[in-house]
């Protein structure tokens, strides 16, 4: 479940001074403060990294803020942060601005992957869906209202209606699914909006008529993940870390961290730790796909 940003900010506002004060007594203050800003999708993982790193290197404090990928990149260009989290690549215009402002090229680091699985009840006979079918189910004015509209005889669901389950509109998962599966169109009215990835999978598990989406790490035995095809003739690919990494699975994207110029000093140490097995274990723990073992340097 995503923690509302404002609570996080408020909690940080209370906790940070205390943390600094309490550390100050014992360790003569935090030697280095790294600032990390950007994507709201990545804020959970970025915060988990920062917290875990505080135990690895207590003399370094990493402060994380959200605001969106664009906000983080803008802050990197201004030089107010050392790292920018982004769930999209940097635009050429942004690269140019960074070069003009700071005199260096951005360095792009892939720190993990975000892949959404489409879930149905385990008794649903659907074998695969195309992105166009997914759009017809979910998007406003989409044609598919019943399972039979997709050519599926879902006997577990006597009324045949497709129950569409989504996340609340403020979540990054909602934005990502809307961007990739709905091509930025709106969700159909009457779509159930739930407040957490786990809740979506749980409800799909109880509801034979339902279809829903969440990070693939949330799968349970009560649901099945639907293989997806980019187009009608194409091969349907089941979501898996491997299919995410070789880009054959359609609803996946890398999670980027950008720095201005080759990272040095504490920033470099932090990024190396992020790509190391302990850092990547955190990626998996918050529901994303970690980099494959041995690929950490390739991610750079």
């Amino acid at each position: 479940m995503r923690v509302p940003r404002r609570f996080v900010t408020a909690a940080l506002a209370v906790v940070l001074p205390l943390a600094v004060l309490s550390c100050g007594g014992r360790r003569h203050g935090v030697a280095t403060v790294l600032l990390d800003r950007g994507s709201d999708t990545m804020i959970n993982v970025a915060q988990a990294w920062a917290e875990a790193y505080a135990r690895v290197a207590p003399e370094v404090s990493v402060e994380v803020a959200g605001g969106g990928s664009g906000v983080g990149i803008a802050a990197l260009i201004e030089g107010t942060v050392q790292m920018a989290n982004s769930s999209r690549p940097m635009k050429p215009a942004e690269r140019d601005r960074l070069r003009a402002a700071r005199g260096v090229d951005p360095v792009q680091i892939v720190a993990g992957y975000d892949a959404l699985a489409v879930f149905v009840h385990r008794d649903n006979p659907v074998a695969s869906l195309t992105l166009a079918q997914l759009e017809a189910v979910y998007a406003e004015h989409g044609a598919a209202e019943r399972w039979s509209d997709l050519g599926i005889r879902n006997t577990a669901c006597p009324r045949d209606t497709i129950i569409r389950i989504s996340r609340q509109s403020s979540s990054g998962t909602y934005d990502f699914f809307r961007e990739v599966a709905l091509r930025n169109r709106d969700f159909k009215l009457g779509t159930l909006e739930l407040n957490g990835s786990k809740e979506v999978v749980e409800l799909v598990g109880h509801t034979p008529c339902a279809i829903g989406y969440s990070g693939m790490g949330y799968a349970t035995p009560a649901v099945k993940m639907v293989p997806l095809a980019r187009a009608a003739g194409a091969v349907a690919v089941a979501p898996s870390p491997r299919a995410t990494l070789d880009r054959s699975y359609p609803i996946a994207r890398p999670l980027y961290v950008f720095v201005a110029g080759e990272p040095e000093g504490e920033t470099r140490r932090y990024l190396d730790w992020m790509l190391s097995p302990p850092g990547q274990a955190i990626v998996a723990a918050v529901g994303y796909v970690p980099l494959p073992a041995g690929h950490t340097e390739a991610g750079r």
Partner: protein
Amino acid sequence: MTTGASGAPAAPGRARFRRPPLSVWTERLIETVVIASGVSAVVFVAVILFFVVREAAPVFVSEHFSLREFLFSIEWYPTSLVKVRYGVAAMIVGTLAVTTLAMALAVPFGIGAAIYLSEFCGPRLRETLKIVIELLAAIPSVVWGFLGLTVVNRLLILLFGASVGLNVLNAGLLLALMSVPIVVSIGEDALKAVPDAHREAALAMGATRWQVVYRVLLPAARHGLLAAALLGVGRAVGETMAVLMATGHAVQIPGGLLDPVRTLTANIAAEMGEVSQGSEHYQVLFAIGVLLFAITFLVNLTADLVVRGVRGK
């Protein structure tokens, strides 16, 4: 208070009857506190209303917002990339549907239970029942919501073949269970307040117990019973957490009891957390708050007029 003693040189005997200054001050202090408590209710309502209206106000003059769309369109797309739309008609209908169902279940059961408790039940059983009913009122709403999400959800699919278990019926059942204790306790008080002389007179005339209840007690206690029902409505309209979890939180006009809906309160709760302060979406959420104020005011006003109408007869 006597003032004569202060001017003239007081005789020792009379001075003893003057109240000590401490006592006078204490009384004044208590008086002030009581007045302040009384006035504070008005002040709080006024301040809350002012704050809600102030936060909502800018959106009413915004060019993206039209009051007509707000009240009569069912399209709620506050974060759309294509076209932002703020229509809450579906949520108004959702709120009414859930509340009406809850009241249709809670009022007959609640009043029935109140009649049983006050007229038919033995004193020992009554004490036990009252404790249990008060316990029912003490269950936090998030626990009710959890019950709806897990137990009622599955039951509705199993028993009624519902497409999805989070729907009007689920939320209506939960809200009915949550409002019943209020209806029962206030209803019972209202029936108890009817003087025993009424009962005795009716029984002396040869009325059966049922006739006493139907012809004497219910008409005599009607104001109290109406108040009981309306407080139940208030509880149901204002409830947030349980309906957020049990309605399915889907923006649509329900076609039946087994369709998911969204209520106004749940929408505010779900979206206020992450909306950026001062944005148009934030202001529209406050406009929904103003709308809820208006609905509550209308309910109370209607109740008041009805009670007066009943009195007038």
